């Protein structure tokens, strides 16, 4: 079943009344304004994206700088651990014998 409201009109809309709303100049102005807004939004979006990438790059570089010495230390520690383990293993073998 339909849910529409049907109205009956006695007369057609006159050409004169329609002509009151016809304005191509206004349409062009609106189009130009919309085009400019779209362009500004595009530029702004690219600017935001670039700023975000720069900030991300700065954060990552700082993070790398901050944790770089710790990583060296960790490596040394790991090497030391291996040496200690080997020494311990050798000692255990000697003791068992």
């Amino acid at each position, binding site marked *: 079943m*339909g849910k529409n409201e049907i109205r009956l009109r006695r007369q057609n809309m006159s050409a004169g009344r329609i002509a009151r709303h016809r304005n191509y100049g206004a349409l062009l102005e609106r*189009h130009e304004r919309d085009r400019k807004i779209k362009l500004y939004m595009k530029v702004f979006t690219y600017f935001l994206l670039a700023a975000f990438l720069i900030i991300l790059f700065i954060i990552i570089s700082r993070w790398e700088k901050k944790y770089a010495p710790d990583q060296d230390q960790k490596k040394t520690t790991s090497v030391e651990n291996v040496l200690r383990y080997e020494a311990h293993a050798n000692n255990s073998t000697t003791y068992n014998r």
Partner: protein
Amino acid sequence: MSEEEIRQEYSILERSKKDTSAFGELYEKYYDRIFNFIYRQTDDEDITADLCSQTFLNALKNAEKFEYRGVPVSAWFYRIASNEVNKHYRKIKRDKVFSIEELKVRELVEQTDDGWDEELTNKMMTHLRDLPTEMLEVLELRFFEDKDFKEIAYILDITESGAKMRTYRALDRLRKQFNLKIKYDGKK
């Protein structure tokens, strides 16, 4: 509309991609028809003017994306207008209004001996009200806007056989109550 005329309109649209003032020719040519088409679905002059303006603005914005599909440029305008009307009704969340010219309704129905009376008009209105929106849309395009099925299919984004089927079913429903003058293909 001949193939030559359709091609001519496409060339105007092509020109308007570089020079927006060229679009004015199409605007002037089709403004009244699109206005009437929208007005028939809103019954409000100011809303119609807004939607009509939005229709042509969208057409101008998307002129670059438009592709030749063998239908007149006007069919594309009708399609945008139809989408704008649907968008409007989704926004206001109200039932769709169809404001039909009495003369057009009379053209559909064979007059009785007593001529056209108030009772027959009311009966017609009641039956049109019961038709689903999709059927009213095809009836409007087929008999009030004189569009062929290829154009109707393009405007409503359905297949050509789908458009024929909807028209046939809509007229079939009305034919049970009225003595219709026209066949589904528009012939009397």
